[in-house]
């Protein structure tokens, strides 16, 4: 049997790319064994490139039943032993173990970060039987052939064990928190009600929900305060311009009225014309957080979706590794080469050529650094397949941002004209771009508005055409959206760049939060309420951040895994004991919260017949069939009811019919597309649909 080097990658797409890059002819042989693909390549020796499927190993309870807590004994095991839907992991691990038997050399080629290092380590240690100490490590930031070849020719002689230790600790600490707290919640509710519902919280999930609740409380108890503004318009050379009153906020209505009376129909004199130039530096390169924020504000993509798209673009070798915190672009990536390659695409030809004309290409960089990877940049490769629209958008955004960072500073001019009417001042503002600079490369993603003013001189007389009082109210603090929440988590230093987006999704999937502009549900409130009474330390943002910082120290060999684990257990133990003592009342509170949440899910909207009742999805006691009925039926006031489809799922949409205004429901039968259902029998839309059939 010919001995070979076994190269382990994180995903099948990465394995294909690496095998293609390393094979002498660029045509590796694909083999599939029990559904597990791997690639045979020939270079200076035989190579077998085998992918993982993300994490193949996870932390599990060492022994014992699932239905008790606290549990502090754990071990690493293949994922299929812990997760129901992970059956294929068994064959995956078996295949890798088999391939490891005949390998003489081992190379980890997973993503060079915390998760990737841990994935490679676990496979080498468990599936390949303790090969982690002899394995080499390939490090690369793009899946470009040249970079992969370099990484293969000059691998690190050993794995990055401090990164692995940091990754292991993070997973183990998260497991300790997640499994104990989630079991405590789930078991308390089950023991009280006898019914099973998945309830979860975690080391980061709990504190995140807690600060969302802080904002929710401020919004729900908010009382607006009135204030007034003065709106005025002026006409200059037959064009109308809006002018601002000197004070943006007037606290008393009588005072606002007095200003309006004093200025209405009056002529103003230009007292001052101030022209200022301001410089706007180019943006910094994208790290994953800023890419997610920008993609959300431009395209409305959730952070998780953007991360998924960026990951696909990386696996297609179109952009560099996206899970980076860096805002630096080192010259080693060869800016000119990338721009030259991009200029082959007609859309980027002009801007890329313009940049290439510059004497020196120097990117504007941000402060954030990442020792493992540079900021996100395009590789210069062009797509080999047709990209989906979202992929095209994110790729284009990365390219234009990359070009913009090399652009010159933009110069803006702002004009502020002070107009005096009696003793009151009004301001007329103009804004224009004098030099586009980097903005020309970042179009159409530049957000800037120009207001051009005619030439105005001091002493000029201008008529205030309209002066009115604008009644205003203070607004509650804004709700978080997935993107601003991710930013806030980053600011608070909780979670990692790889986990934050998933944590937000979990909050949605557990039903703790809802809507794009995040609203905390009653269930979310109850969970945090219970935890803050019984285990306040586990939802403390401060303590979570402190633990996070300590875990970061492991990466730099300044802290030990054992100390962190001990600290986590010491923190959890008393909290869980306290929880157990109060399990009865907690279970009751949770069961009621779940019941309320389930009821809430069935509410359709106000009853259009009686006006006071609520329409809900109900089940007939006689036939068990579901229908929509009014809650006033039980009081003997309203007998309104509507039939519903009996197959599939039916959920309130939270929207109303555009034609009749009645609430809509969403129905879905497995394997079919969902449809919206207006249950109003006299809905004009239904009437319209019926007419052609009758004719």
């Amino acid at each position, binding site marked *: 049997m010919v001995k070979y080097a076994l190269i382990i990658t994180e995903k099948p797409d990465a394995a294909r790319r690496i095998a293609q890059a390393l094979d002498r002819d660029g045509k590796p042989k694909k083999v599939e064994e029990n559904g597990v693909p791997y690639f045979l390549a020939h270079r200076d020796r035989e190579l077998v490139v085998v992918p993982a499927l993300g994490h193949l190993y996870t932390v599990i309870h060492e022994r014992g039943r699932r239905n008790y807590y606290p549990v502090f004994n754990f071990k690493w095991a293949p994922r299929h032993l812990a997760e129901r839907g992970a059956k294929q992991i068994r064959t995956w691990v078996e295949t890798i173990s088999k391939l490891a038997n005949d390998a003489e050399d081992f190379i980890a080629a997973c993503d060079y970060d915390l998760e990737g290092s841990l994935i490679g380590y676990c496979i080498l240690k468990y599936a390949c039987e303790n090969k982690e100490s002899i394995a080499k490590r390939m490090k690369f930031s793009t899946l470009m052939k040249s970079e992969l070849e370099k990484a293969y020719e000059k691998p690190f002689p050993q794995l990055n064990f401090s990164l692995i230790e940091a990754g292991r600790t993070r997973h183990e600490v998260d497991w300790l928190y997640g499994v104990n707290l989630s079991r405590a919640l789930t078991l308390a509710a089950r023991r009280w009600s006898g019914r099973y519902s998945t309830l979860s919280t975690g080391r980061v999930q709990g504190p995140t929900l807690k600060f969302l609740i802080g904002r929710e*409380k401020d919004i729900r108890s908010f009382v607006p*305060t009135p204030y007034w503004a003065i709106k005025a318009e002026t006409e200059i050379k037959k064009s109308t311009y809006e002018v601002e009153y000197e004070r943006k906020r007037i606290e008393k209505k009588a005072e606002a009225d007095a200003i309006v009376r004093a200025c209405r129909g009056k002529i103003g004199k230009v007292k001052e014309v101030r022209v200022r130039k301001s410089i706007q530096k180019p943006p910094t390169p994208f790290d994953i957080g800023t890419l997610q924020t920008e993609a959300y504000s431009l395209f409305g993509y959730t952070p998780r979706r953007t991360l998924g798209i960026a990951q696909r673009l990386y696996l297609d070798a179109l952009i560099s590794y996206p899970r980076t915190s860096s805002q630096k672009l080192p010259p080693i990536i060869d800016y000119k080469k990338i721009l030259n390659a991009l200029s082959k695409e007609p859309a980027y030809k002009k801007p890329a050529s313009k940049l290439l004309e510059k004497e020196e290409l120097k990117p504007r960089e941000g402060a954030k650094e990442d020792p493992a990877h540079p900021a996100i940049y395009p590789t210069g490769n062009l797509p080999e397949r047709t990209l989906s629209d979202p992929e095209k958008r994110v790729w284009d955004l990365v390219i234009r941002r990359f070009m913009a960072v090399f652009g010159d500073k933009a110069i803006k001019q702002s004009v502020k004209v002070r107009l005096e009417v009696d003793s009151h001042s009004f301001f007329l503002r103009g804004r224009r771009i004098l030099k586009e600079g980097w903005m020309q490369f970042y179009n159409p993603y530049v957000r800037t508005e120009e207001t051009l003013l005619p030439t105005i001189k001091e002493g000029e007389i201008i008529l205030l055409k309209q002066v009115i009082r604008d009644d205003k109210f203070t607004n509650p603090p804004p709700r978080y959206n997935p993107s601003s929440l991710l930013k806030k988590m980053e600011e608070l230093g909780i979670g990692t760049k790889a986990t934050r987006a998933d944590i937000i999704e979990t909050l949605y999937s557990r039903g703790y939060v809802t809507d794009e502009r995040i609203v905390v549900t009653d269930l979310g409130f109850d969970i945090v309420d219970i935890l803050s009474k019984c285990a306040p330390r586990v939802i403390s943002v401060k303590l979570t951040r402190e633990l996070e910082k300590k875990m970061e120290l492991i990466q730099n060999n300044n802290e030990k895994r054992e100390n962190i684990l001990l600290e986590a257990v010491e923190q959890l133990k008393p909290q869980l004991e306290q929880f157990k003592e109060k399990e009865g009342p907690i279970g009751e509170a949770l069961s009621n919260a779940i019941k309320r949440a389930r009821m809430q899910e069935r509410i359709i909207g106000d009853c259009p017949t009686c006006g006071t009742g609520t329409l809900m999805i109900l089940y007939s006691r006689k036939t068990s069939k579901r229908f929509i009925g009014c809650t006033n039926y039980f009081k003997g006031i309203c007998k309104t009811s509507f039939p519903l489809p009996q197959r599939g799922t039916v959920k309130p949409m939270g929207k109303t019919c555009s034609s009749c205004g009645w609430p809509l429901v969403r129905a879905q039968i497995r394997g079919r597309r969902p449809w919206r259902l207006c249950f109003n029998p006299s809905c004009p839309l239904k009437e319209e649909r019926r007419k052609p059939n009758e004719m």
Partner: protein
Amino acid sequence: MKCRICSKEAVKKYCELHEKAYRNILQKYEDWRRATTISWREYLNDILKNPCTGSWAKEVAERLILDGDS
């Protein structure tokens, strides 16, 4: 004692959450009075109609109107 609005455990008249909204209502009335001449009753009606008012504050305002709290 139970909250007069949601039947949760009350701190004084209301639960912790509605109590917070109640305190806000009382506190903001001073601002409203300084800004414009308005009676307590008119104030409660105004904040009840205002789309910026939070849901708990609305519930408390409604309760105060029903109770004829003046």
